[in-house]
């Protein structure tokens, strides 16, 4: 480390920093750094510490040294070796203060933590909250996903040409955004840079929280030291020039240097030999861990288990020898691509399973080439089917005969192994899918939400980070004597549970076994929400790549207390099902590209932005050698260049948007702004009416876009609040930019009483968000922000309260009591008219659907879910699938709230129950519930809505939405639902026919 200031350490000091993935050791003597070492510890925390110290022994022998340990995984070591411990952020601050006192802010990214320290204007040290992991470990995961090394990813990112929006909340979310981009063929260069940008956004949104990062900014930690691309993104986003961005040579060692400084100040030096001895003694020490019983008591148990599962196998044939018709199935999944070729008698002739390496098209091309070259000339592919995330891309590229939704493909395959199957659980790389089968048709489909995908790829990345392959890691888990209890939340939480286990000295064996148990518990309790095995089913088939891991399979059987069938081709089930489906088409010839066509096949992908509407979708244009194009990433048909024929289907979401903003404003003395977010989506007519009547020029903010969110992102104090609330900040900024003198968003404990619930509250966030805005938005201080507490259920009281408030806060306007009364009356009338119009439109849409024989879909959520940025065009997607879309509030009056098992006390939520009842009562009506991530109230409503629907044998589908939503996954869910409905209709038709 050259050009470094001298450290104020006279004697010898050792600083040890043990982070989540790496260990760092420095030796400082006479103010100089004598030695510095940085290594991955592969969770062998204590062994590594001793080994690193041993490596440096030649410098320390016979000396008296002072020492301190820092780092998230170092606490346990420090305690059991009785050495001083210093919190890592504190240590960093110490180093920076000593070596670069001119620094105003420090951004430090570590393996799993992100930290910001502000020095100017009052020291402020911050760490990421527990739901915002994803920094170093996140970048590692993403590199794995792109199938490149970290260095390669860095290299790639420097050659980017565009940035895609990638969710920045946590790794799991980001992954679900990146996967479709990969599948759609976006350039790796662009994705790499976008990943870094996501890290930057997360750091700023999650940590700065309204405080501006400026002046001299120092960047520390591994990722920022190694990734030039990441540095570039930070500098660009924070608008820093070379002079104000510092990347010091000690970026990796800031914490360990701080520990050395701290250790020196303790004035408790000890002989090096003593230090070494103490650390060595700590290696064997074990702390008490929460554990579960081992997966197998002994080897014999494992053998019995293996023999049992060995029986569930498919028959295989030899590709080269086979003559006759063959059928191809392709499963283009989120992380892997699978191919299966079967014979007329369902023998498997060829299989392929591997990571799609970010380019599934290339892989399918290669594989088809191999199959064609090995096939006998008397054999012929007579049918081909494709399923999975990449279905459409592959279908367009290779002209397969059929595309089918994943759920259907899996069901066909499972039925082949157990015709009586009544429950299928598939845990793949990214998804957990499970469905119940009732009367030979799929009865209910449950998919994991974006937040809980602690699935296969999680174990894989973990195994790799600890230096094992998945297979080795799984094998180790089988015989862990005491699997660690790691909790069941999302990946990030599991990551920190593992960190804790490592700190406490758990072995790799027990961590591996513990992870398997966690994945299983996550699937059963968090995703499926089952209380016991009987709720799942009697004839259970499990599949998907993750179940090839015997530790996972065993954990599952133990957890539900029942044996299940895992076909030997578990990871290939989707492709196998697609092949079976292709066979069932009974075609003479397949439209699949021929041997010759494959040889000359080419594929290029280019990113563009659609200008079709305000959504500005980022799309990828795939061009194939034949000159054909396939466009992906679009939210509606417009982008794909398709025009729908005939009368467009009613879409209440679009209609409500029109109704809401069709309000005239008169010029007035003062401009009053209404932020179009949260409660305003329903009460806009009321406030608009009131303030227009009072003589204000009312300005309403526009429907949100991603930009709206970014505009206000800087002042959001609670990152885990829901997106509809967080976007409010952007609306406020927008209104201020538009020159409003006054902003208005009232605090309403109570919403409108619609007399169908026990009470009529707003949720706490809708009710009191104004208080938060007032406390956290600097810009609001430049204007007037009115947020009275009002009673909207009593015109008289409302007028009185409004009058009192205006008297106090705007006395210069001289509003009279009478004015207020008249204004409130006008507003109420406007509001009632608006709601009546919404209901009338709802009825009209229902009539339309019935006249034209269309299915009705209630897209149930809250009024603010009609915001195109919040529902991400799901309404349009549903319309494009042939549904007439209505909103919950447009038809809630057509049914009565059924008796519910919860306290029905929120106005908006009560409509959900009525809407569900309407769907339950009507054959042609289906309901899909949209739930914003972080919505606490929906933890209560979702179970209830499901119960209302299922009581009448209806399917329940829930879509969790957030900042960014993977429309590909939504499409699969809606299509699965459609598939299941068609299947049911077909069954019923058959029965009636008999």
């Amino acid at each position, binding site marked *: 480390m050259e050009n470094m200031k001298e450290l104020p350490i006279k004697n010898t000091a050792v600083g040890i920093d043990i982070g989540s993935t790496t260990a760092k050791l420095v030796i400082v003597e006479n103010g100089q750094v004598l030695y510095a070492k940085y290594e991955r510890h592969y969770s062998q925390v204590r062994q590594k510490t001793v080994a690193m110290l041993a490596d440096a022994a030649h410098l320390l022998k016979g000396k008296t040294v002072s020492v301190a340990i820092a780092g998230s995984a170092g606490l346990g070591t420090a305690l059991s070796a009785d050495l001083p411990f210093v919190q890592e952020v504190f240590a960093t601050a110490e180093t920076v203060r000593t070596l670069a006192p001119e620094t105003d802010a420090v951004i430090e990214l570590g393996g799993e933590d992100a930290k910001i320290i502000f020095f100017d204007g009052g020291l402020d040290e911050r*760490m990421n909250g527990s739901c915002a992991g994803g920094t170093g470990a996140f970048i590692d995961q993403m590199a794995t996903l792109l199938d490149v090394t970290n260095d390669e990813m860095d290299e790639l990112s420097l050659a980017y040409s565009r940035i895609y929006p990638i969710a920045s909340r946590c790794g799991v979310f980001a992954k679900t955004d990146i996967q479709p981009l990969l599948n759609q063929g976006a350039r790796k260069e662009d994705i790499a840079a976008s990943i870094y940008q996501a890290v930057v956004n997360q750091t700023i949104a999650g940590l700065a929280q309204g405080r501006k990062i400026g002046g001299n900014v120092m960047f520390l930690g591994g990722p920022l030291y190694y990734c030039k691309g990441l540095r570039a993104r930070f500098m660009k986003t924070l608008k820093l020039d070379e002079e104000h961005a510092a990347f010091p040579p000690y970026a990796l060692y800031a914490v360990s240097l701080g520990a050395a400084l701290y250790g020196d100040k303790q004035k408790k030096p000890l002989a090096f030999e003593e230090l070494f001895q103490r650390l060595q003694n700590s290696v064997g020490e074990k702390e008490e861990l929460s554990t579960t019983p081992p997966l197998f008591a002994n080897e014999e148990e494992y053998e019995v288990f293996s023999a049992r599962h060995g029986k569930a196998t498919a028959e295989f044939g030899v590709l080269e020898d086979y003559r006759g018709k063959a059928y191809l199935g392709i499963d283009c999944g989120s992380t892997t691509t699978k191919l299966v070729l079967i014979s007329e008698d369902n023998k498997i002739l060829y299989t392929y399973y591997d990571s799609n390496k970010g380019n599934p098209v290339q892989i399918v091309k290669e594989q088809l080439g191999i199959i064609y070259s090995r096939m006998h000339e008397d054999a012929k592919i007579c049918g081909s089917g494709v399923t999975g995330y990449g279905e459409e891309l592959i279908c367009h590229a290779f002209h397969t005969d059929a595309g089918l939704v994943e759920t259907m493909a899996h069901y066909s395959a499972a039925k082949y192994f157990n015709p009586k199957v009544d429950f299928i659980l598939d845990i793949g790389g990214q998804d957990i899918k499970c469905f119940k089968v009732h009367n030979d048709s799929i009865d209910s489909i449950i998919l994991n939400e974006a937040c809980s995908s602690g699935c296969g790829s999680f174990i894989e990345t973990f195994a790799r980070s600890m230096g094992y392959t998945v297979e080795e890691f799984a094998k180790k888990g089988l015989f862990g004597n005491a699997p660690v209890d790691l*909790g069941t939340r999302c990946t990030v939480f599991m990551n920190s549970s593992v960190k804790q286990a490592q700190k406490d000295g758990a072995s790799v064996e027990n961590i591996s076994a513990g992870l398997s148990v966690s994945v299983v518990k996550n699937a059963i309790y968090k995703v499926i929400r089952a209380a016991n095995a009987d709720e799942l089913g009697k004839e259970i088939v499990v599949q998907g790549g993750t179940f090839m891991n015997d530790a996972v399979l065993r954990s599952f059987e133990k957890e539900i207390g029942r044996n299940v069938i895992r076909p030997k081709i578990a990871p290939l089930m989707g492709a196998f099902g697609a092949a079976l489906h292709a066979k069932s088409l009974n075609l003479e010839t397949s439209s699949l590209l021929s041997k010759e066509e494959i040889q000359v096949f080419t594929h290029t992908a280019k990113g563009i932005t659609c200008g079709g509407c305000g959504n500005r979708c980022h799309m990828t244009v795939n061009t194939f050698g034949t000159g054909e194009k396939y466009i992906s990433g679009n939210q509606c048909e417009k982008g794909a260049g398709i025009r729908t024929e005939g009368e467009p289907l009613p879409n209440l979401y679009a209609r409500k948007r029109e109704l809401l903003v069709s309000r005239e404003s008169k010029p007035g003395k003062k401009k009053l702004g209404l932020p179009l977010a949260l409660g305003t989506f329903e009460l806009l007519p009321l406030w608009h009416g009131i303030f227009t009547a009072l003589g204000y020029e009312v300005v309403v903010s526009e429907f949100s876009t991603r930009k709206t969110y970014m505009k206000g992102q800087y002042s959001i104090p609670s990152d885990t609040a829901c997106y509809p609330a967080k976007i409010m900040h952007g609306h406020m900024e927008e209104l201020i930019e538009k020159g409003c003198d006054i902003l208005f968003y009232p605090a309403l404990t109570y919403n409108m009483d619609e007399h169908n619930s026990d009470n009529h509250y707003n949720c706490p966030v809708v009710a009191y968000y104004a208080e938060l805005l007032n406390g956290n938005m600097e810009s609001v201080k430049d204007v007037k922000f009115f947020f009275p507490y009002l009673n909207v259920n009593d015109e008289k009281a409302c007028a009185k309260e409004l009058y009192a408030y205006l008297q106090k806060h705007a006395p210069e306007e001289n509003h009279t009591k009478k004015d207020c009364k008249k204004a409130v009356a006008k507003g109420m009338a406007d509001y009632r008219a608006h709601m009546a119009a919404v209901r009338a439109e709802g009825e009209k849409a229902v009539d339309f659907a019935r006249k034209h024989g269309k299915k009705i879909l209630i897209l149930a959520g809250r009024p603010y879910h009609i915001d195109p940025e919040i529902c991400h065009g799901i309404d349009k997607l549903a319309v494009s699938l042939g549904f007439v879309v209505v909103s919950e509030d447009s038809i809630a009056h057509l049914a009565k709230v059924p008796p519910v098992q919860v306290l029905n006390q929120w106005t908006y939520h009560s409509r959900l129950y009525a809407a569900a009842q309407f769907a339950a009562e009507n054959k042609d009506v289906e309901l899909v519930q949209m739930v914003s991530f972080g919505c606490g109230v929906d933890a209560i409503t979702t179970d209830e809505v499901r119960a209302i629907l299922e009581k009448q044998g209806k399917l329940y589908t829930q879509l969790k939405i957030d900042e960014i939503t993977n429309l590909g996954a939504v499409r699969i869910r809606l299509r699965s639902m459609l598939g299941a409905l068609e299947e049911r209709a077909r069954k019923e038709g058959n029965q009636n026919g008999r």
Partner: protein
Amino acid sequence: MEDKKRVLFTEEMRKDYTILVPTMLPIHFRLICRVLNHYGYKAEVMDGKSEKIKEYGLKYVHNDACYPALLVIGQMIDALESGKYDPHKVAFLYFQTGGGCRASNYIFLMRKAFEKAGYPYVPIISMSLTGLESNPGFKLTLPMLVKGISGVLYGDLLMDLKNQCRPYETVPGATESLAQEWEDRLYDDIVSKRFSYRRIKKNYRRIARSFAELPMDRSVKKPKVGIVGEIFVKFSPLGNNNLEEFLISEGAQPVLPGLMEFCLYCVYNMVADVDLYGGSKFKRRIMNFVYKFLLKKQGDMNRIIAEEGFDPPLDFEEARQGVQEIIGIGVKMGEGWLLTAEMLSLIKDGVNNIICTQPFGCLPNHICGKGMMKPLKEKYPQVNLVAVDYDPGATKINQENRIKLMLSNAKPPEEKAAEKEPALV
């Protein structure tokens, strides 16, 4: 709704049913249970120590529901499954708040969980300050209520004195055993024939004095760390991974506003509701009377604490009025404005280090906890605030690391080293 389906706690059951109370504040709840026993109910506080609580919670409660719901219901199912009780002979008593927070749905989540676990017949008695579902076998009488309130105040007193003494005790364990001794004595005293307000005040005095007489070394001042937040995770060692213990072991002095504050907050909201949204003036008058009454009783206790040389607990009325410069007191869901008020009062009392505890994704706390930190910091730049999320998946190490960071700034490290030395005995 669906009232007829609800399993009632009948007069019959009163005779031989055990009423189990999930734990939150061990001392308070034990005293309250004693009052119930005295009036003929077989009540028992659960100890919350079973390993399986979390697991049962995760299994039977929607995982996105709040963590306290999970822990409370987990305790209940654990008791039913433990084999310690005959499930046909137990009922549960639960204290709840009601209002616009989703916590008012706990009772329904409990019934759902019981159904799912196969105990649909177990009655649940919900008790709240805002009214309760009627159960023929359970009647709250005025003497019961009065004794219950004194139980709350005694609990607050012991909790407060314990936290003020433990960090400074020179005989390890002395504070704890004194508190235990008093808890046992009060256990009988609270239902004795000699129960009177005069006697209660005398007890306050005797308790405070005995704590003041503990051998303590106050030569090195320890940093005070306030704990505020969602009521369950703030108070319950089960919910917050033994936060008080942890702080003491790190050489800090925990400062916890008491349970009575929460009661006062609930009562006052009924007064404020009428002011803000209209309603029965009579109800307002009654509630205002109750508010003033409780305030007075708490004031008596606080005064005695101060007179015996301890830091007095926060002045509720002052806190309520002061908070309005930061947040409106119409914010009444969950802990609402009380949370902000407690932070503000702690700061004003010189407690500059504050941990705001909340279950992950707690809705009201987005506003009143994390949402009010910036305005508080603006006004009082010296404060050292940290928000810590509690959750079945959140790890202790993550929480402790954040708290440690806060503590490192609570005092210069040089002092810390000095404190590590055992105090002179």
